């Protein structure tokens, strides 16, 4: 098996699903040339009808994806950076998310939104944000945060086939990460967490780009006989609560690690769930390791101080275990 990068894995997923269904199409800003490479070459294979550069008009083209989905196609809509979603929140939150429900189940909205999120080195506050927390409270959406090439391929393919609006958050700093991807049809279901590393002493629930960081910390601590279980929820909505609670039942300690902010973030959401439904399993508080509650600063030392990192994950584990 060949090693595939995260960005190549996205490209493969798009290619395979576009081959499979002629009603799929890709649109977004500069998807033809593709700055990050995810949609590179698709226009050569599928032509300009199905690979469409849009104007810079997020509410317009995101809303067009909503209408196109309602009218029987399966749009794959790219929003370059997660924080540009803010320009199209009405179409995502008031329309895509609610139209099925408001129509009593008549509307079907098979849309996949893709975006790049997260800090990637000096991109500053408007290009580094982790924006999924804002969508958790919007019933009707599914939220996917793939942490590896294999996952991004399998999850994106599932997202495209899903008949609901799904937002896939691709971390900007994972693009060149490599992994072997199983050959043939590779699907990862939405709503199933993955134990990325089994362990006994503590459960670290890590999201997106925090997964490789948590794994490195787990590896390091293994040398000290601290056995860390790293659980990757893979999708935040639906959330695999069962897998999380099962793990915490085994380890009796939990930490949630997220690149988003603390206040109102995905880490708080998962921590609250554990504290409510898994209270009896817990031998200590559910710690949250997140980025600081400030806009992401530009200057590298400031950015570094803001984003959750291995040092803070390790410290939280040690504190939780009194080790």
């Amino acid at each position, binding site marked *: 098996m060949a090693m595939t990068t995260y960005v190549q894995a996205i490209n493969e997923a798009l290619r395979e699903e576009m081959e499979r269904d002629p*009603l799929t*199409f890709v649109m977004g800003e500069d998807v033809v040339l593709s700055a990050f490479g995810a949609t590179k070459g698709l226009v050569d294979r599928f032509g300009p*009808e*199905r690979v*469409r550069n*849009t*104007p810079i*008009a997020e*509410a*317009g*083209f*995101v*809303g*067009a*994806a*909503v*209408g*196109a*989905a*309602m*009218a*029987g*196609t399966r*749009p794959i809509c790219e929003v370059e950076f997660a924080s540009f979603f803010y320009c199209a929140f*009405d*179409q995502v939150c*008031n*329309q895509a998310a609610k*139209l*099925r*429900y*408001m*129509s*009593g*189940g*008549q*509307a*079907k909205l098979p849309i996949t939104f893709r975006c790049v999120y997260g800090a990637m080195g000096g991109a500053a506050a408007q290009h580094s944000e982790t924006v999924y927390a804002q969508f958790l409270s919007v*019933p*009707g959406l*599914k939220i996917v945060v793939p942490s590896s090439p294999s996952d991004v391929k399998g999850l994106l393919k599932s997202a495209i086939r*899903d*008949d*609901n609006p799904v937002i896939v958050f691709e971390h900007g700093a994972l693009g060149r990460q490599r992994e072997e991807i199983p050959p043939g049809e590779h699907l990862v279901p939405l709503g199933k967490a993955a134990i990325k590393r089994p362990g006994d002493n503590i459960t670290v629930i890590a999201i997106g780009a925090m997964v490789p960081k948590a794994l490195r910390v787990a590896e390091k601590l293994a040398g000290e006989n601290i056995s860390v279980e790293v659980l990757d929820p893979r999708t935040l909505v639906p959330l695999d609560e069962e897998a999380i609670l099962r793990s915490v039942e085994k380890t009796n300690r939990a930490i949630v690690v997220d690149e988003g902010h603390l206040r109102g973030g995905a880490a708080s959401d998962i921590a609250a769930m554990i504290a409510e439904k898994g209270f009896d399993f817990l031998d200590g508080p559910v710690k949250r390791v997140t980025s600081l509650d400030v806009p992401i600063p530009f200057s590298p030392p400031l950015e570094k101080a803001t984003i959750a990192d291995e040092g803070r994950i390790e410290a939280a584990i040690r504190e939780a275990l009194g080790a």
Partner: protein
Amino acid sequence: MDIGKDLLLEMYRAMVRIRLFEGKVRDLATANEIPGFVHVSIGEEASAAGVCAALRKTDRITSTHRGHGHLIAKGGRLAEMMAEIYGKRTGYCKGKGGSMHIVDFNLGILGANGIVGAGLPIATGSALAAVIAKRDDVTVCFFGDGASNEGTFHESLNLAAIWKLPVVYVCENNGFGEFTPMQTVTSVKDIAVRAQAYGIPGYVVDGNDVLEVYRYASEAVARARAGEGPTLLECKTYRWEGHVVGEQAFLGSGAYRTEQEINEWKARCPLVRFQKFAAESGKIDAAELKRIEEETAAELDAAVKFARESPLPAPSEVAEDVYV
């Protein structure tokens, strides 16, 4: 353009169905028999009826918070509409949508919408779907003068223009957005002028003349279907009733427009105008119109009965229909 008799009667029927249905809805809302915010379009029937008469069943529309008229003109069934407005399980949306969110997918009605301007990109995307799927259906987007100041208007018309999408944008300019006179918040007198910003045709249409509306709409729909791109039609019209049923309770009457203005527009009633045309052209017998009115009254009575007698949804249904 010669309009056949069947089509003429169909348009009149649509206007009568809207007029009677909305009058009833207004009365029921006033009597607190209907919950929520209700917006009626009485006085504006000709634009809905004239435009939808130019469409096929497989064509699609998007509508607004003031959507009953568009839905009825596209073929919406009064019983399921009324049941929805009552919040009954037998309504179009099983009671989950209400007046502002009625949808009938089988009739190409993608939905009323509570968010001003939100239908514009959705209609644009619906037209894009026809291109992607290589079908020749057309989408009509109804929206108000107020909505024409939303950014979605701009983004949508630009998108439709560059991609030559099969969509017709129908602005119903009734002179007000809520209680604000259009000219105090809109930089042009005629919304149709804005078509120039997209290099597409834009026309001012007498929105109270169903025949004129039909003619402009037919041409725009034909252009769209032929792959020649979008058109902007501005139907000048007026709503006789308040923005929302019951507004007098908190605004007082005469708060933002005069009785005189309202009466002037009532004198231009689209139904009466059609009746005059029928009589003067000699094409249609008054008795035929009368029969349509009677049939519609009966249809409406049945619809109200159906809605009243239908069951409310069970609380357990609340969790259904969020996801497929």
